[in-house]
């Protein structure tokens, strides 16, 4: 019994999928930007020698790394309104969830990157009179970030796939659109195949760009690989 593939009903709904893709990129981009910034903040706090700073940061990181993102999303979207009366649109709830969730992963990437820089770099910076924050900003972070690019890319891809969960709270992302299209066309196989392909293309292109950036950094002689 051979399945008769027919993609035409799916392609007829291309605008719906395009809109879904746009929304997916929107939520991913938002969570990425806030996730990276927040992640750096969490990493710096966690690395602090002061326990009243490092412990809470460590707590947030561990909680968000060890609980399922779907549970986190439901918590922000359904529990917060009931508990403290904070109501959020699906987009905001998703942005908040995925920002903090990815931040906790980015924080660990940042921390590993920062700690991978040799002690001698701190020595060199301190010996010319730099403060800790100056050394971090000017000497340590620029080198750490370069080493972090592959891990960083990995997290960004993971994040884009995680955002599909936002369909469960009725935000019209790509997966939500796919669901709609498949119900409309009775062609779930074709629909989800197309959607998988879209994810593949977007993520593949993004990782190619990251590879180019990496190559460029290596070629300019700024590579930290000795």
């Amino acid at each position: 019994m051979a399945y008769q593939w027919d993609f035409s009903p799916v392609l007829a709904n291309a605008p719906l999928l395009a809109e879904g893709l746009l929304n997916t990129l929107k939520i991913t981009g938002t969570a990425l930007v806030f996730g990276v910034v927040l992640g750096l903040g969490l990493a710096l706090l966690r690395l602090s020698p002061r326990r009243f700073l490092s412990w809470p940061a460590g707590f947030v990181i561990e909680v968000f790394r060890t609980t399922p993102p779907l549970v986190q999303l439901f918590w922000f979207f359904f529990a917060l309104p009931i508990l403290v009366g904070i109501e959020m649109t699906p987009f905001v709830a998703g942005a908040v969830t995925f920002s903090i969730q990815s931040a906790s992963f980015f924080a660990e990437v940042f921390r590993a990157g920062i700690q991978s820089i040799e002690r001698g770099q701190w020595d060199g910076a301190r010996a010319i009179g730099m403060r800790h924050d100056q050394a971090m900003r000017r000497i340590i972070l620029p080198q750490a970030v370069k080493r972090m690019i592959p891990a960083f890319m990995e997290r960004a891809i993971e994040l884009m796939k995680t955002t599909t969960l936002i369909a469960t709270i009725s935000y019209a992302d790509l997966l939500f659109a796919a669901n709609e299209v498949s119900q409309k066309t009775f062609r779930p196989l074709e629909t989800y195949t197309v959607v998988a392909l879209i994810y593949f293309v977007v993520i593949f292109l993004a990782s190619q760009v990251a590879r180019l950036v990496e190559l460029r950094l290596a070629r300019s002689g700024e590579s930290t690989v000795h």
Partner: protein
Amino acid sequence: MTILKVTGLTKRFGATDVLRGIDLEVARGERIAILGASGSGKSTLLRCLNFMERPGGGTIALDGEVLGREGRTAERIYRESELIQVRQRVGMVFQQFNLFPHMTAIGNVMEGLRTVRGMAKPEAEARARKELARVGLAEKADTYPAHLSGGQKQRVAIARALAMDPEMLLFDEPTSALDPELVGEVLAVILALAEEGRTMLLVTHELGFAYHVATRIIFLADGAIHEQGTPDEVLKNPKKERTRAFLASHKQFSF
């Protein structure tokens, strides 16, 4: 005139006493070579002088001013801002150079001027070029450390330290990480600085160089000053048995 006065300096790492009460007075223009077997505490002593390591006990006075204030323990309490001032006045050159790999040679030299001193870019650049020229690397200004030889890296590191106008320079085994054929160019730069009358403390294994450049030799053993004196006294006529044994073990020792 005394620039640096160290009194009863101690330092321990875990259960090990690395420095056991060092007394040392450095006069302006003096050049002191610190010798000793590995583990004798010579690098730790140097690193305490610009507070890369916090001294465990004792005091350090710069220009007659005792640094830090007394705490409840033997360890004095130092404000970070105070130490940052000290580190600008006491420059340091490391065995492993510790250049910033993401910056060019001139970027490395400018960094302290720009970030720490807040100097404007054109001024900082001019100053950095002057320092690079002094160490003979004017033409390598735009080269990244990865493309410099070990000797060139160390000369950039020296230029980076000099750019901060330090009153005193600390050299922590500046040639130990270099291939033998590159040692000479670095020593030549240090010698030129010596001839300018700069105050410097130098931890080294180059005994011949120490003999020529130093005004005083300190031999460290077990975290204490075992013997000190002029190069002739310590290197040619050592009084103590351990000094003699140390010198004998350095086969390249020659005048």
